[in-house]
């Protein structure tokens, strides 16, 4: 599987340029891509930018900024899915769309500008999304004459930000994406830096050891095939074996796995990530979560979450639609415990009535019984989306289930 790497940071600090440079220097692009871009530049009377390998909307070219997220597959030691996200505050939802599956982040900070508003907000959001591995690329070193002192100052400023969010030991890399220093090729212009390039840093990542977790199988649907009822869904964590005794919650149905069906045929075992069907003799419902009797999923109706709101307001007493796994249900905002500044992570107010756009909060939600898990234990069932009028408007993670 490929490693998901998101490139984040403030607008204009060089995220798309960094990726464009990586693709260019590694000769990943097809030959006619450059010719295609040359044609664009002539027609729009623009100077060449590496960002144009990613920014493929006309508006992105005209406005010289990334509007929406995109991703490219890059082959290093492993495969990396490199995700580009916009750095503007108005496009936070596109940033989250790109960043939500990241295992690694490269935080790009401009050497002449240092830490800025979206540097801080993106760092906060990475922390909330549970991204553990962060590299900091101090970019535009060419604009500060490749001076070590500037690199050190910006690194220290960024390290303070990261440590305030609980990150320690991030690696700092001085680069110029525009000139190609320390992105794919080592730089000859910063003798004071002996560390790895961006790509060498990615190649040095050790894959996370996946701890064995309890079985959680989310039910998407039940199909009637000939005489069989097949419960289809995905194993989110743990291992499902033929013969296992299961309980589904919140419906409370119990059954024994007679068959694990794929097409064509059957298998004996399914692991996390597998989409398949099971025949159990019982009929679970869409939104149910299956688990073993000895470590069962437990339904709850009140739990503590951290949310970030992307549109409108969220008030105490409001009702939202919530989607977690395959469960879609109503939830009530029963308490807003802390209103949080999503730029700095600081608590602005306690026990408040309302939060606004682009703010975060810790909130107590009430629902009909459903299965959620602590994000820190089973992330796949500890993260959810909030919707209003059928529009996805916020995202959250579960902090506590027993409150």
């Amino acid at each position, binding site marked *: *599987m*490929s490693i998901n790497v998101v490139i984040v940071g403030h607008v204009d600090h060089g995220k798309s340029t960094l990726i464009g440079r990586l693709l260019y220097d590694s000769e990943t692009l*097809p*030959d*006619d*891509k450059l010719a295609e871009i040359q*044609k*664009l530049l002539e*027609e729009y009377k623009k100077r060449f930018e590496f960002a144009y390998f*990613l920014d*493929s*909307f*006309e*508006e992105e070219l005209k406005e010289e900024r990334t*509007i*929406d*997220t*995109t*991703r*490219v*597959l890059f082959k290093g030691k492993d*495969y990396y*899915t490199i995700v580009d996200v916009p750095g503007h505050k108005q496009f936070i*939802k*596109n940033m*989250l*769309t790109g960043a*939500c*599956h990241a295992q690694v982040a490269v935080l790009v900070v401009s050497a002449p500008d240092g830490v800025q508003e979206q540097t801080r907000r993106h760092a906060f959001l990475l922390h909330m999304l549970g991204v553990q591995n962060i590299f900091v690329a101090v970019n535009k070193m060419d604009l500060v004459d490749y001076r070590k002192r500037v690199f050190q100052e910006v690194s220290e400023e960024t390290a303070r930000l990261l440590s305030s969010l609980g990150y320690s030991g991030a690696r700092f890399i001085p680069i110029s994406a525009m000139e190609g220093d320390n992105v794919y090729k080592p730089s000859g212009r910063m003798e004071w830096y002996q560390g790895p390039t961006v790509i060498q840093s990615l190649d040095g990542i050790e894959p996370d050891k996946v701890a064995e977790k309890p079985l959680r199988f989310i039910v*998407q*649907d039940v*199909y009637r*095939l000939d005489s069989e009822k*097949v419960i*289809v*869904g*995905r194993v989110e964590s743990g291992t499902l074996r033929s013969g296992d005794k299961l309980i589904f919650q919140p419906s409370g149905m119990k059954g024994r796995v007679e068959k694990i*069906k*794929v*097409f*064509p045929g059957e298998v004996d075992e399914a692991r996390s*990530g*597998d*989409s398949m*069907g099971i025949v159990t003799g019982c009929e679970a419902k*869409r939104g149910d979560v299956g688990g073993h009797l000895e470590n069962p999923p437990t339904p709850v109706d009140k739990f503590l979450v951290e949310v970030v709101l*992307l549109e409108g307001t969220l008030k105490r007493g409001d009702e939202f639609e919530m*989607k*977690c796994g*395959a469960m879609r249900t109503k939830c009530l905002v029963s308490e807003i415990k802390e209103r949080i500044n999503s730029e700095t992570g600081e608590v602005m107010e306690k026990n408040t009535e309302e939060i606004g756009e682009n703010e975060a909060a810790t909130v107590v939600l009430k629902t009909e019984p459903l299965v959620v898990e602590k994000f820190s234990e089973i992330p*796949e069932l500890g*993260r*959810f*989306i909030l*919707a209003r009028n*059928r*529009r*996805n*408007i916020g*995202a959250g993670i579960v902090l506590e289930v027993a409150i």
Partner: protein
Amino acid sequence: MLDLNDLENRTIYIVREVYAEFKSPAVLWSMGKDSTTMLWLCRKAFFGKIPFPVIHIDTGYKFRQMYKFRDEIAREWGLELVVAKNEEAVKEGVGPEDGKFECCTRLKTEALKRCLEKYGFDALILAIRRDEHGIRAKERYFSPRNENFGWDYRDQPLEMWDQFQGLLGEGTHMRVHPILHWRELDVWEYIKREGMPINPMYFAENGRRYRSLGCEPCTLTIESNAANIDEIVEELKITRVAERAGRAQDKERVFTMQKLRALGYM
């Protein structure tokens, strides 16, 4: 190599979400390698029988071999085939000489629009992939289209953790892209692994082959000696030529693809 099982699992998950969340889905099939792979994956998701219609948008300009392949596979897999054609434009004699943009819009986008009105489909499964084209790389898995078929790419929905946007209102429909994360190479590796039937036009004859299939007047061959699936896989590992190099509608002018897609092109 990417793990084909991971790619397949994610796609099947998405297809099952469509079937669970929408009243009247359908899948588009052009008989090319991607949409044939898409059908194969739909069959896997539903254990052999696709429970919704399969739409072929017939411009009348497709290759003869493609119609033959269509009819054979439709019979073999028991497909509920719907052939969508903009008869009015065909009668008017619309063709590539009217300009690629005009031709694609009238014969493909409008044909699809009429088909949707006639059958009331609210979700369309399409086999586009990010690595085909920069504009397709900007897509979501679930991408809403408004009443006029338009794609509001300046305000795409929040899409996190496989929690997809639902329908937004009357007259709108959802474009769903379950193989968005597959690459051209992955598709061929998968065809090979699964032993899938494939249109023989992809195999080289006399030093040339089709790498991407569209309408006959607007699709060119590329130089290649890859005469079977194994040789195509090997060719793709080293090629420096873009997949859609032989597809004229992408290249007529810059941003043609964006403008086509904004109007509801596939």
